[in-house]
Structure formats: C-alpha cells, structure tokens
C-alpha cells in the first residue's frame, strides 16, 4: 500500500519540479529534495520495524551491545551520506558529492575500527588455542 503512495509522491514531485524549472530553477531543485524527504518519511515506520526486529534478534544472542550499536550507527551514517551526496548531485555539484561520499566512507571506517579490533582479537585467541 505504501509503495503506491510513494510512487504517486515521486511522480508529483518530479512534475512540480519540472514545471518550476522554467520559473525559478532553485525552487525546482528544492521541490525535488522535499519530494525525496516525504518518501523517506513515508517509509520510515517500516524501517523502524526492521530495526526493532534486528534489535530483538541481536538481544537473544550474547553479542555485546557495542557491535549492535556500531551496526546501527554505521547504517545511519551511510544513509545520511548517501542522501546528502544525492542532494548535492541534484544541485549540479558532482565534484562536491564525490567528496561527501569519500568523507562518509572514512567516517564509517573510523566507526567500525573497534569491531575490526575485536574480530582480530577473536582470531588471535582461536589461533593460540
């Protein structure tokens, strides 16, 4: 059901932004960005449901909460980077969006270092027997 609403919102937003492009290009791009945001908000409650399920799934296992927190934080940062890079690309600054993507990758890497560290310690423990 939500997919139909998303399709409608996407089409209407693109038509409006196309129409506005003739009068004022900046407002047209802002309309497109607003359309994207509305789509995200429409799908947000499904995303919360998925996050809830993943969390309950993780809580059964004895994996400590640092890993789970990192997983969710990395997901949020990755999505945010993707959103801002797309917005910047829409506004015509392709070079800038590449830099945003690079910054996002580095941020994700820096956030996932503790997880990699615990993985290595696990491997060392297994190897030493």
């Amino acid at each position: 059901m939500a997919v139909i609403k998303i399709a409608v919102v996407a089409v209407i937003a693109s038509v409006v932004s196309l129409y506005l492009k003739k009068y004022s290009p900046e407002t047209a791009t802002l309309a497109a960005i607003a359309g994207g945001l509305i789509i995200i908000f429409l799908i947000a409650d499904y995303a919360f449901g998925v996050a809830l399920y993943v969390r309950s799934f993780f809580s059964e296992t004895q994996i400590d909460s640092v890993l789970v927190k990192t997983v969710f934080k990395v997901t949020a940062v990755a999505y945010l980077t993707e959103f801002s890079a797309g917005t910047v690309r829409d506004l015509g600054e392709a070079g800038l969006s590449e830099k945003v993507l690079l910054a996002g990758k580095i941020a994700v890497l820096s956030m996932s270092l503790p997880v990699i560290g615990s993985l290595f310690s696990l491997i060392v423990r297994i190897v030493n027997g």
Partner: protein
Amino acid sequence: MDISVIFKIAAIGILITVICQILKKSDRDDIATLVALAGLIIVLSLVVNMVGDLFDSLKSIINLYG
C-alpha cells in the same frame, strides 16, 4: 508528512514568479530580485525544517536501538 508540502512549494514558486514579472514590468527590478530572494528563503526554510526532522528520526534510530 504528506504531499501538501510539495504543493506549498509549487504555489510559492509560481506566486513569486508572478510578482517578479509584475515588478519587472513596472521597471522596479531591484524589488523584484528582493522578492525572488525572499521566496527562495521561504522555500529553503521549509526544506531545512524537513531535513531537521530527518536528522531527528535518524538520531532516534541510533539511540533507541544502540
């Protein structure tokens, strides 16, 4: 959060354009640019508020399920 925001942005865009045309015809180009700027700022504040809501929902995802 439904589709009314997009129609609001479209209405602002068209209204500003009409006002600018009228001002240009009565050769007050400086006021026309100011009106265009004002329209753009209104639309920008609208979109910035929505981006703020997006950041809040992302932050709640991180804190709630951390």
